[in-house]
């Protein structure tokens, strides 16, 4: 394996100095040096990337992943340490960064290609392929400012992938465009990988990292937390998300408790004492797929309410709704409520894939308004030994049989 990128002990310091104009500098001359706040966007990063690797850089917002990508791309220079690399590099930090709205599509193709380091002759050679890939030949001689954002992105990506880079840096650019175009981009990226090119991604789409990358680097506040298998990196970042969700849930619970009792508010009901259980009433927060599962809460109403229902929703860490229902949908007619009731949902089995989940509960009228709602009041985790994509865990039996020639002939 040949190393194409070597990042040696790179640190990057940003100083936040808001005073830009001469006047501000003069007026604030004394305070400037005091108020100059500095922070390290990257701290002692060491990376060695072999050719043909597809690497995902993941982390929270502000974890330094984009900064690292820019340092590798040469757009920012590191404060300490150094980056070495070989081969042509194309950085897709923003699609169409070099586009100028007043120029036509055709002119922009040439301009953008030359920004990415392609000569005019080579662009001529690839021109038809670029236009073909973008699929906008009708609008080629229209000024780019009249393009829809989709067309814009199509053309930009088409140029970028035809530059023939050895190293491709991609920063969240795949989050744009419609679904079919995204698929086209991903296909192109996969074929890049098959051709043995090196690709570095920055993305929040963890599924994409798991799907495409052979290696993942997790950054947190500029420090490298993990470097290795994508599944492990993703699990680690999910754990930190869960911690955050925990804090949020506590805050939500505190708010719910603090709601003044009996006050003339729009919420005549309150939900309290939410517990996630093993289905038998015992608190539990980590499950294996297939475990029994339950949620219990106390609903309190100061007035007598005849038509009421309790709803439950389970969301995953990506805010995707995994399950939602309520007692009305379950065809349950609840007895009128006055005072407190303990409501328990019980499930025989939890068919969810590995990940962190949030529970939201609500009490509401059968067709009417919410009486009380506690969003993401509790979290639980599902830990699975087997890695699966999607939302639902479906245990499968697979058998593979030989097909004999006779049965083929019979068909």
């Amino acid at each position, binding site marked *: 394996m040949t190393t*194409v990128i070597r990042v040696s002990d790179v640190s990057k310091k940003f100083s936040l100095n808001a005073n830009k104009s001469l006047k501000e500098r003069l007026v604030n001359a004394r305070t400037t040096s005091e108020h100059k706040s500095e922070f390290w966007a990257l701290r002692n990063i060491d990376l060695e990337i072999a050719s043909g690797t597809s690497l995902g850089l993941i982390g929270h917002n502000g974890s330094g992943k984009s900064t690292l990508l820019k340092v590798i791309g040469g757009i920012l220079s590191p404060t300490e340490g150094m980056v070495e690399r070989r081969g042509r590099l194309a950085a897709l930090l923003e699609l169409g960064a070099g586009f100028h709205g007043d*120029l036509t599509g055709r002119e922009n193709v040439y301009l953008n290609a030359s920004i990415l380091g392609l000569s005019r002759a080579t662009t001529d050679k690839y021109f038809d392929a670029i236009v073909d890939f973008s699929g906008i030949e009708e609008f080629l001689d229209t000024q780019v400012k009249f393009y829809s954002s989709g067309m814009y992105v199509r053309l930009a990506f088409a140029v970028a992938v035809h530059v023939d880079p050895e190293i491709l840096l991609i920063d969240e650019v795949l989050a744009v465009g419609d679904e079919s175009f995204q698929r086209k981009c991903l296909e192109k990226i996969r074929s890049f990988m098959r051709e043995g090119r090196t690709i570095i991604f920055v993305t929040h789409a963890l599924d994409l990292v798991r799907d495409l990358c052979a290696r993942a680097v997790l950054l947190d506040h500029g420090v490298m937390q993990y470097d290795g298998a994508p599944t492990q990196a993703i699990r680690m970042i999910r754990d930190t998300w869960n911690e955050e969700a925990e804090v949020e849930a506590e805050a939500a619970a505190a708010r719910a408790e603090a709601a003044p009792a009996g006050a003339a508010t729009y919420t005549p009901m309150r939900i309290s004492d939410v517990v996630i259980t093993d289905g038998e009433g015992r608190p539990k927060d980590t499950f294996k797929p297939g475990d029994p599962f339950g949620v219990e809460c106390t609903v309190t109403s100061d007035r007598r309410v005849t038509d009421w229902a309790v709803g439950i929703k389970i969301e995953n860490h990506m805010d995707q709704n995994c399950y939602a229902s309520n007692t009305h949908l379950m065809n349950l007619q609840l007895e009128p409520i006055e005072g407190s009731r303990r409501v328990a949902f019980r499930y025989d089995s939890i068919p969810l894939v590995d990940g962190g989940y949030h529970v939201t509960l609500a009490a509401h009228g059968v067709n009417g308004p919410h009486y009380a709602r506690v969003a993401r009041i509790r979290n639980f985790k599902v830990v699975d030994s087997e890695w699966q994509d999607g939302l639902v865990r479906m245990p499968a039996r697979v058998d593979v049989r030989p097909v004999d020639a006779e049965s083929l002939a019979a068909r």
Partner: protein
Amino acid sequence: MAGTSTDLRGSGAEPADSFQEATIRSREEAIEALPMERVNPPRAFFRGAVRDVVDILRYRELLGQLVRKELKVKYKDSVLGFFWTLVRPMTQLIIYYLAFTIFLGNQQPAYAVFIFSGLVIWGLFTDILGGCTGSIVGNGGLLKKTYFPREIFPLSVVGAALVNFALQMLVLFAAIGVTAVFTDNRVVLTSDLGLVPLALLVCLIWGLALGLFLAAATVYFRDLQHLIEIILLALFWLVPIVYPVVLPIRNFTEGGHTTLLEIYLANPMLNVVVAFQRAFYTMGPEYTYPGNLWGRLAVLALVGLGLLWLAQRYFARAQGDFAQEL
């Protein structure tokens, strides 16, 4: 037989894979052959310029594209289009001509040619300086997302300014032609025409040197953009464009201010402008600078080169932080 057929099948079933493998392997070998290069290496303050120039030369195609972009974009949707480039200097010409000949009673022969020969080169200088100053700040979007030598931005401004300059030169030639045919003013070719390339060179060197410096400095002091306009306005009257250089020379000498005169004459743009006047304004040689312009321009070119080198080094130092300052 059976053996051969399996062999054939074996090699026949593989091609897709082995082909792929071969491209990967050859790609890897090709990469391996390349040297490991350091990204943004810190370059010695004194010796780094050569490497930087080599880098810039590698991107000359981009430079051409950017120059084309500047020119195309500037007057893209206007009816008169490129003609607007000529409107500004022509208007200036008419205003000064009217003001000086009719209102102030200037008696200089072919005064329009006199003004225009100075205006043309002064216009180039102001275009370069004004354009360069905002070139880094104005291209922030591009600069934060892509990498190429940042000097390309000021250089593309120079390129676009040169194209405008060439057009205005055509107008100047036309004006001289008209003067030669329709008036009895003296239009001759003199050896002073040789001063034109030298003067142009001095103008470019100084313009680029100051431009590089201003482009980088504006990133940190945005006020420079506005300041430079004012400075250029003041500088316009320190350069003998609308008045003949012989007037201040006479006045300074009569007043005994020889030091002041020397300072006044040391202005590089003054020397460039009077060189253009000497070359193109042959209608009244008594109104042009009489001294040895060859020597003066040569010295200014050398000093300018030193300055250009210093400016480039400053620019190279500063450019590492452009992306984060913008």
